[in-house]
């Protein structure tokens, strides 16, 4: 017995031609595009770009008011929480059961969209912070190191994804906003638990681990379970 025969197509099946592959790629692209449109990802991208511009303006013209840590960080943190809220809300889907029943690629699309949007949000906010530093000829504070931004944004996006799993995609914004209030209170009172990672200094290992755990948990749960849907358990996607 040899394996030569395995290269032959099974009796009755059609060989995969270039045209078939093209059709599959087109179907995949169409599926992805429809998924993104149904989740209002284009609108989210526009709003994320707006948040990047807001961060640029806030750092460029020093909107931050002098004071303690809560005062110094509140605009960057609010922008990061806003971006995380947008990412969480994009998990909301209008189709419910029919989509879950028919779409076997849904978990992959949810994971890919969440990761891509978090990456894009990081890029836009980092660009806003860097542009402010450059356009002020270094006069604007470079107070938003990339590592800190990634940690804070990533962790908050994780909080948003978790709240989408718990509350539903439409209310996924509640997690990051609540986390922002908690963070501001912790900064005002000098609390430094790593679970409130923005209170920790840049490159703090404990804070990075906690933020990493939260984004990982958020991605896993949003991939496997999807956002909670009104009227009952979402069930497996």
């Amino acid at each position, binding site marked *: 017995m040899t394996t030569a025969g395995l290269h032959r197509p099974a009796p009755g099946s059609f060989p995969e031609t270039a045209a078939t592959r093209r059709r599959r790629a087109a179907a995949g692209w169409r599926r992805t595009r429809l998924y993104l449109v149904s989740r*209002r990802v284009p*609108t*989210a991208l526009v*709003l994320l770009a707006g948040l990047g511009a807001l961060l640029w303006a806030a750092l460029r013209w020093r909107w931050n*008011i002098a*004071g303690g840590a809560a*005062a110094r960080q*509140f*605009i960057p943190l*609010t922008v990061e*929480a*806003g971006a995380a*809220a*947008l990412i*969480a*809300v994009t998990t*909301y889907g209008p189709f419910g059961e029919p989509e879950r029943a028919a779409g076997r690629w849904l978990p992959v699309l949810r994971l890919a969209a969440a990761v891509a949007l978090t990456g894009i949000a990081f890029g836009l906010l980092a660009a806003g912070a860097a542009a402010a530093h450059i356009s002020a000829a270094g006069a604007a504070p470079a107070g938003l190191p990339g590592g800190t931004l990634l940690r804070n944004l990533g962790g908050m996006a994780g909080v948003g994804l978790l709240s989408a799993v718990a*509350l539903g995609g*439409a*209310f996924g*914004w*509640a997690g990051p*906003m*609540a986390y*922002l*209030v*908690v963070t*501001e*209170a912790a900064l005002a*009172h000098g609390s430094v638990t790593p679970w409130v990672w923005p209170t920790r200094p840049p490159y703090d290992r404990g804070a990075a681990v906690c933020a990493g755990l939260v984004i990982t948990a958020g991605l896993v749960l949003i991939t496997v379970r999807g956002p909670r849907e009104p009227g009952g358990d979402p069930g497996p996607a």
Partner: protein
Amino acid sequence: MTAATSAPARPRAPRVTRALPLGAWRLLRVELRRNAMPWMLPLVAALFWFDSYRPSTQTEPLYVVRTFWNMGQGHTIVDFAPFGAAVAAWMGSRDGRRGLADLVTTAARPRWVAQLATWAATAIWAVAAYLLFVGLMFAMYARQGVTGTPPWWWVAVGAAAVTALTAAGFAVGAFWPSRFAAPAAAFGAILVLLMSSQTGFHHGDGWAMILPTNSNGSFQNDSGISYPWLPDLPIARIMFLAGITAAVLGLTGLPARAGGPGLRRAAAAVVAAGLALAGTGVGLVSTARLTAEGMAIPALHDAADDAPIAYTPACGRAAGVPVCLNPAYGRWLPAITGALAPVLAEVAGLPGAPARAAQAATTYTGSSIEGGPPALSDGGPPQAAALAGQPPVLRLYLGMLNMPGPCGFCDGPVGGTQFAGQLRLLFAHAFVGAGSSPGSPVQQVVQATLLRGAGIPFAAQPRLMGSTDNFPSPSSKSALGPVFAAAGRLAALPAAARHAWLAAHLAALRAGRLTLRDLP
């Protein structure tokens, strides 16, 4: 057939039996039942506990101190309003998101009226929950024995702020029926409130006093203890917030689909009235001035609010001298009599020694405003102890001090020994007549000697002066130099000789006429 039945039917005017027609009540009831706000309340409750209640329990059990963070700096509003605004945006965008806008436009009831019912249901949930949570917090305070009067006017400001932000959020949702309306409303509300907090820290007068989270001129000292909370600023803020509420709700009635021309004209009038009300509020706070009892607005001020709160004092004795306090401070009476007893014993029998000690109302000085001199002081920092009257009475302005126990705005709890040392220092400083200045060298010598006699060694005194709020410390950071050398010599005298010297020279000492050479 009777005449009655053959009489022509006469249309009867409908009797008005309720303020709102039955249909409107039913609509409101349906909206209340199907509102998303109750689902958000557990999260808000957790935030309220974490951000508003928990930090306040680490402070002195006086309402003015307990509520400084959560009511004065508006954290109860920060915990509530963004979520209220976001849910209102979600509810306001409902018809648009579901593609029902055309359908509801053709319904019997005008669209604006239906929208107002949706907003009202959201606002009722949010404000009712706000009042419930604040009420529970105050009940907990009462159970913990917190004294003073709760700042009820500021509770009303909070409720007005929650209402205004739900209205603003609702307008966002009504004009932008998107799933992103809710996070955008929450983001906007939180940005506005935190900006308001940060701006409020630095502005003690002018337009910024309208900001609902600006605590300047409102939460100092003995408000609600010795004198009532002034309602002027809260009334102006409520006017402003009510104006904002009316204006943004009126805006939702302006589009063509909102209703007929009459209704839209009414909506335009509501917008104009709201803007006028908000503008009046801003104008009124611009005329606010800091008085001894807080921010007063001449056009709103009622002289009856200046009357002190009557009370039966809580009294004790220190070295035979009666010491009377406001009952709100009664829990600290043993600590105060214990602290004053050694220094009062030292000066007993001297012609200028106090015949009694009594708490006096601490007035507003504006000293909490960063970057500016105290607005009402006479130059130097106000002192928490002063001698006045004939026979002399020791007046204690305890509102200026951090009392023993938990202290939320210090580095840590205030210990009994630390407090006693501060009170003895303040008494000795007042006794030598140094006022708001560090005092003449001889006054400093006598102050140091009195403190040493009360059990505070010279070496510990510079540190004690540095740690006492508002104390006009001399430049020396150590117990060295001619002042402490002279104090050592004075302290080495027998008590009777020291007493006799003080009796002979007290008037000259207080007048600042003595030099170090005049000391024995």
